[in-house]
């Protein structure tokens, strides 16, 4: 069976990180989210993959190449305009024969998740199938209503009483789906989500099955959700020290990864789980506390403390800084005494709507230059390519290319 991964979306709610990358490329434990999807497919013997790319496609294509490094073969299809999942799936017509698996590239799944779907499908009656998970709070998800594994209705954007089965976006389709999509695309609704096409099939009397899984299925809705997902995945890493640690290691020594070419200098202290990429220079006297991922080619100067954070590639962090519950994008140059204050139960405004964050410091986009002695209030979002002057206290949202004095 072939698999189709949908990877064309920007993920606007994950800005500022998605100004420069698509949502599927958000890093979790130093790997793009989509790599977990590819890995899960590979581990189930599915090695023929079509990825539908669109927004910032180059990064994904450069990273995954033809799939060789991941033990799979990848072809790409481009979705020029983001006209929804139905339109995206329509683009693979002719590239997939018989039944095929569809997954979202930005949902984290495990080998078992895909295995659950395949097993249920092979034991069931075939045809169109949807994988669901149980969510107490179904806000923002499509709920799947039905009985005895047979879907009666998919409801988007609306809660249904006592229904907690939400759609994972993981499907098996056969060729009939393309006709249903044609009808959806011709409808006046202006909505080209694949759930509409599935509803169309149900309404036309086709059987659509749903299976529930309790295996991993994680969704990054807002940029800051990355912290939670990152910490969950870090709990599953295994010790691997290819770089050099001159400093000391605290608890959870079995959950520390330091890649080739990196050095953690004397007097530093690392408590796992922590993942450090290639060619990093950390310390001396730096403390890295649990649930932190640090990308490739990162420099962290002395007396800096980092906890529960995600630092992307090519970042420089000056001495005496404290970074907690924060995400620092690529290629930031941050001078000394940088503090991200962290707070709980925050409300953050995105696109005119307030969104909730349990616990957050700051989320910082790519390529900013931040001067000495800058601090950020809890829930600060900084765009890309900003210049922030010495001693500034930043709060709220800073747009791209802003200059803050």
């Amino acid at each position, binding site marked *: 069976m072939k698999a189709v991964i949908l990877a064309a979306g920007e993920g606007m709610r994950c800005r500022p990180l998605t100004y420069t990358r698509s949502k599927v490329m958000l890093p979790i434990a130093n790997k793009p989210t989509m790599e977990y999807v590819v890995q899960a497919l590979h581990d189930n013997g599915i090695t023929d993959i079509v990825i539908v790319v669109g927004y910032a496609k*180059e990064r994904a294509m450069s990273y995954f190449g033809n799939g060789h490094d991941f033990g799979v073969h990848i072809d790409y299809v481009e979705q020029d305009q983001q006209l929804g999942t139905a339109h995206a799936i329509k683009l693979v017509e002719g590239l997939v024969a018989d039944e095929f698996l569809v997954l979202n590239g930005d949902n984290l799944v495990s080998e078992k998740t895909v295995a659950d779907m395949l097993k249920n499908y092979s034991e069931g009656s075939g045809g169109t199938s949807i994988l669901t998970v149980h969510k107490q709070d179904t806000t923002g998800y499509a709920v799947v209503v039905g009985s005895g594994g047979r879907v009666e209705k998919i409801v988007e954007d609306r809660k249904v009483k006592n229904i907690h089965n939400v759609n994972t976006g993981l499907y098996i389709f056969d060729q009939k789906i393309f006709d249903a999509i044609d009808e959806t695309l011709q409808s006046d609704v202006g909505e080209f989500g694949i759930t509409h096409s599935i509803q169309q099939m149900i309404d036309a009397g086709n059987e659509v099955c749903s299976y529930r899984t309790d295996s991993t299925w994680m969704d990054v809705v807002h940029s800051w959700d990355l912290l939670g997902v990152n910490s969950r995945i870090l709990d599953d890493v295994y010790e691997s020290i290819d770089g050099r640690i001159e400093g000391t290691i605290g608890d959870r020594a079995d959950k520390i990864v330091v890649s080739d*070419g990196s050095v953690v200098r004397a007097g530093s202290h690392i408590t796992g789980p922590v993942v450090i990429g290639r060619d990093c220079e950390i310390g001396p006297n730096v403390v890295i506390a649990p649930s932190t991922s640090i990308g490739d*080619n990162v*420099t962290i100067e002395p007396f800096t403390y980092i906890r529960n954070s995600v630092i992307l590639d090519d970042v420089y962090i000056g001495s005496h800084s404290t970074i907690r519950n924060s995400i620092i994008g690529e290629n930031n140059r941050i001078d000394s005494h940088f503090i991200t204050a962290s707070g709980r139960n925050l409300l953050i405004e995105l696109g005119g709507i307030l969104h909730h964050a349990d616990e957050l410091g700051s989320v910082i986009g790519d390529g900013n230059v931040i001067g000495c002695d800058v601090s950020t209030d809890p829930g600060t979002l900084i765009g*890309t390519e900003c210049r922030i002057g010495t001693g500034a206290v930043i709060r709220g949202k800073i747009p791209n290319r802003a200059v803050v004095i």
Partner: protein
Amino acid sequence: MCGIVGYLGTLEAMPVLFDLLKRLEYRGYDSAGIAIAGNSIRTSKTKGSVDDLVSVTPNVHGNIGIGHTRWATHGRPTSANAHPHCDDARGIAVVHNGIIENYTEIKERLIGRGYEFRSETDTEVLPHLFGEHYCGDLEASVREALSDVRGSYALAAICESEPDKIVVARKGSPLVLGVCGSDFFVASDVAGILKYTRDVIFVEDGEIGVITGDGIRLTTLDGTPVERDVETMDLDPEAAEMSGYEHFMLKEIFEQPAVIRETFSGRVSSGGIDLDLGMDLRDVERIVVLACGTSHNAGLFGRYAIERFSKIPVVVEVASEFRYMNPIIDDRDLVVAITQSGETADTLAAMREAGSRGCKKLGIVNVLGSGMTRECECLFTRAGPEIGVAATKSFTSQLAVLLLLSVALGSDRKVLSTASVNEFVYELRQLGGNIQRVLNDAPAIKECAALFTDADRFLFMGRGANYPIALEGALKLKEISYVPAEGFPAGELKHGPLALISEGVPVIAIATRDTVYDKLLGNIKEVEARGATVVGIASEGDTEITKYVNYVLRIPDTNPLIAPILSSVVLQLFAYYVAYHRGCEIDKPRNLAKSVTVE
């Protein structure tokens, strides 16, 4: 410059040969052909690409064959001049990469003995010469015939009366054999056979190989047996795929952040630059850089960097000129040869010429196991396989290696203080990320390029270390878009090139912040006053420039000797999009080939 392939084994030879040829098409694509051994030798050849060959070739069965994709040197690209060339009387077919220098003499002699020639190529003397010496043993006849031949060759031959073997020979042109159980492959380049096997044997100069179902047997030209171990190549066999990109060139441009991180890995740290060079360069008094084409532009940049950081005088020579000018070189010189492929014939020959005068030798090379790596100690650029004919990532990685070399030399000689090395390292570690930021801006560059789709000429100008980048920007543009483009040191314009400027002629000015920034603004004024449309490449945060130019393309602010790498990426994208908007065949520009393995 021509690719040769061969296959002997358990599979149908024809599809394998086509596939191997496709992978070598970057070496030439103006005509192609194959020959399959069997009861008789059956050949098929045509003018055009491998795809054209596939479409005209009827299905031929057989498990042994040879093939060729050509970049014309002797004789126009026609079907008659396409390889394989044959001696019909003896049923011998030959494919050849290189140049037979004394072919006219041999040809006349053979014509005198009644041989008929059907092509204008130098190669056609080979099958006839093999035929003339043939007494039932192809290997022996190749060995005898080659003693009459001057020039360079990598060749593969098959013979109708010995349909169980391929004979190969090499002198001066690359040749590699692949082994996978009882399947054997012949190719001009490892990239050709990696899909089938990673186990390869490099044939060396002056060796003949005989491939049969039992294995490969190597001997020298005079018949001494050679023992050669099989090497296992650590390369991604599928790197030569476009992975969703429309062109290899664009794919390779977008690989540059990762390439630069790879180039620097293990070499750049707060402790300084560690190049792990196995030679002592402390008493070097002068550096001579030898290179061709894009690598020559890299060399010109290297001159600014090395002189600036190490105070060692540098001269940069075009390799094909250097060879013939009776160069003055001695043991106080370090000669640095820059070649992506490591097989550039002129650069290799120039290096040998220099080496014979007792200098120290260093190569800056991308391809592992290539000719240059057998010639001297090499610094690898680690850019990975580059398929697009227009060099992109190989150029920026050459610039990066030259920067590392210059800082290493400067710090060895105490010209650079530890503090300035550290400051520079800090900037170098940002380079990969800074290139990514230029790439994030690709849509703006695409839009800007669209404005100049119909321009009939371009001028590029820069000063100091940006001058070689102007040359490279112009080279990139003319290579792939066929629009005349020239690069100049900005101060030279008033000494001639200004006459080329008229209303609306696009001038690309590399105007990043450095010591000659103000001078360059003056030069922009000069062209603007004569009606040019000026595109400035400027550092971010530079507001002054907008007063001088019509369009600005930005690069992140960095050290003036690192900025040229970022400007190069902008110019690569600019050239790509101009060619793209003009509808050009970007990955296969007319008349060009990737590695120039002929002189």
